[in-house]
């Protein structure tokens, strides 16, 4: 499943011109950036409430498929700009972290069983 499909199914709001063809291998949930650098996996989609530009560097270094910001939290303009230059899609959802992670878990699990 790629980001484009995920956006359609989960009704995510894509906030920049990120690369939506990236295949999603799984999900990582954390607001601690060193934790994501240590444990995020290539192709993971990352759910975080951190919205400053450092998240883009973390996602780019780790080869993450994209970033989802839950709770409808506003995302800084320079974060979106940087993400675009790194081809990282940044998406927003009104769902809170737990709901978003749970929905994504079920979706990716179902997709894996296909």
């Amino acid at each position, binding site marked *: 499943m790629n980001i484009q499909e995920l956006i359609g199914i989960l009704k995510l709001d894509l906030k920049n011109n990120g690369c939506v063809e990236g295949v999603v291998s799984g999900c990582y949930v954390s607001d601690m*950036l*060193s934790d994501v650098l240590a444990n995020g996996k290539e192709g993971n989609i990352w759910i975080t409430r951190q919205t*400053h530009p*450092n998240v883009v*560097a973390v996602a*780019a*270094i780790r*080869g993450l498929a994209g970033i989802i910001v839950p709770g409808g939290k506003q995302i800084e303009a320079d974060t979106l700009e940087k993400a675009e230059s790194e081809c990282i899609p940044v998406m927003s959802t009104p769902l809170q972290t737990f709901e978003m992670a749970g929905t994504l878990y079920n979706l990716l699990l179902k997709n894996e069983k296909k």
Partner: protein
Amino acid sequence: MNPEEKKITGPHPEEDKEIYFPLNGGDFSDAGAGSKRLREELAALGVPAQVIRRAAICAFEAEINVIIHAVAGSLHYMINEDILTITITDMGPGIKDVALAMKEGYTTAPDWARTYGWGSGMGLPNIKRNADDLVIDSVPGEGTTLKIFIDLKADK
């Protein structure tokens, strides 16, 4: 320094292999500039993606450490044949107990750093895990120099 190597003092040279980036304490806005440039350069040299990732994690964590703890510092890297050397120097405060600082979860980061999602006590352990060799030289009250070595041909 080998006299044949060039000393560069800005992040713009296209053909040189020795690069220097200044870092300002408390200013996250430039964090990642050095590690981004490093990623791009290693990719252009055809270095395997896994090795680039390890190098970038080391460089980025080290940049962040300077920004959190020091007034100012710099990131400098040099590619000499198959060995990448990243040197991060700062002007204090220095690390009182390096062995303790290497323990995952131990942190002296201020609260403001944690609001940015940093300061979890994972930075130095992340660097250690991803480097092929790491040398820490720190004098409390004076500053810290980290030397990170990455073998560009070998993967861990």
